[in-house]
């Protein structure tokens, strides 16, 4: 089992069944972040950090829209079952140790967003010989690049003054989210013949 997409077709494109499952996973994860950002975003912004939430909402939506159009979709009977598992994993998980409920919910969303943006690196699955002009390959590169930027909002909020008193609880929740997201990502990739490293997921 390789750590990259493949075998590529003669034009250096990722096989459609791999494109389908990876795109479905990313749409599920980023779609969940878009929905949760939308519900958390007030009609009128009250704090400076909420500008980041506004950005988040539209960047996540862009990622979903991009994948819908850039993916070469193939029929995938296993997708229904997997999507249910993924969607249930993205359910809001407030950090219960925080007594201020809106803050606990926001911190929970930030841990999910951090895990998705930091731990999921779709462009790193592209082998050297992948066609750089292929829309799917370009989409993955863009998603990984934008994730690195989006991540900054989570880093700022999770390390921010509001959450400093709950540092240990936030850190534990974040590590749990990372483990969970990495596990789902790894299992999905294994289902299409891709083996990724197991760093940080507690399984060796």
């Amino acid at each position, binding site marked *: 089992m390789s750590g990259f997409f493949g075998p590529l077709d003669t034009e250096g494109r990722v096989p459609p069944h791999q494109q389908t499952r990876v795109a479905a996973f990313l749409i599920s994860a980023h779609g969940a972040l878009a929905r949760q950002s939308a519900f958390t975003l007030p009609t009128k912004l009250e704090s400076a950090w909420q500008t980041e939430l506004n950005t988040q909402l539209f960047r996540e939506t862009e990622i979903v829209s991009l994948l819908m159009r850039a993916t070469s979709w193939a029929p995938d009977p296993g997708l229904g079952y997997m999507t249910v598992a993924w969607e249930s994993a993205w359910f809001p998980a407030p950090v219960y140790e925080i007594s201020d409920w809106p803050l606990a919910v926001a911190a929970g969303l930030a841990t999910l967003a*951090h*895990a998705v*943006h*930091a*731990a999921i*690196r779709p462009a*790193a699955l592209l082998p*050297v010989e992948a066609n750089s002009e292929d829309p799917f390959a370009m989409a993955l590169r863009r998603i*990984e*690049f934008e994730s*690195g*930027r989006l*991540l*900054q909002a989570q*880093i700022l909020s*999770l*390390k921010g003054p509001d959450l400093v008193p709950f*540092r240990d609880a*936030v*850190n534990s929740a*974040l*590590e749990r989210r*990372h483990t969970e997201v990495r596990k789902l990502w790894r299992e999905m990739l294994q289902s299409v013949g891709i083996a990724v*490293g197991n*760093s*940080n997921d507690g399984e*060796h």
Partner: protein
Amino acid sequence: MPFLNHGSYRIRYELEGPPDAPAYVLVNGLTQYAELWAAYREALVAQHFRVATFDLLGQGGSDKPALYINQDDQVTALHRLIGELGDGPIFLTGISFGGLIALRYAIEHGERLSGLVPMSCFAELSPQLLLIGNALRTGLILGGTGYLQDLLLPMNLSDQWLKPLLDKLDSVKRQGWLVNDVYALQNLMESFLDFQPLTPKLSSITLPTMILNGEFDFLTPRALHETLRVEIPNSSLVIIPKAYHAFTLEKGALTADLLARFAKDVLAGRWQGNKAVWVAPEEPGDELMPFPEGYDHLRAIPVRRAST
């Protein structure tokens, strides 16, 4: 592939060479990974050393804490690795960020070491280094690992090394990009946010210390190494000719040879630091040359040192 446990995190490491031989422990720079020491492993094992390499927390195959990486944790992880090496002589070296971790280790556990080699290193953040570090962090945030690599390559390597690789730099960068994650590199960089200068503690390092500094090191220039030379009593500063910050990549054979010679001199009782300043040869095996008497080694032009 063996792992050490540090709390809930794992540290990937590798040992090579005879278990009863004197050991060299090599500590990565911030954007590096253990495989970059492969040529050193080979050269030092051939010189009858045991070699330990590892990925720091947040790097390569070691675990990457999601939000915080503390430099104390890096020192503790290093201590665990050194604990695996038995009771024989141990030499510790590290480059740049890794050199800083090695310095901290020597301050806290110097009794466990036989010798120390900080390379392209610093004990404090000068205004230039602080501002460059901040700018590199911003570069990482805005442009990702690839952009950070784009900034570091021309800053830290010579034209001679870069020229033949200009049309394949993507492949040079690819492995580092694959194994290092943006958030983890950012956490490593942000471990400096509460950094306290080590300078007041350097004098407690009493073990033989060879400080290596590239002639043209832009990121950590001579003055930062001079602090180490002045403060560490049994030290010498060795200037690597025509070398930049990342001379361990560019001049591997020469550097491995200097490391081996230093350890052999220490083990044979020949080492004398004397806070001397030396110029390394350009080829491995050639002799080191004392820096010309009376001239100021902190200047880039031949200026006579002010008498003290």
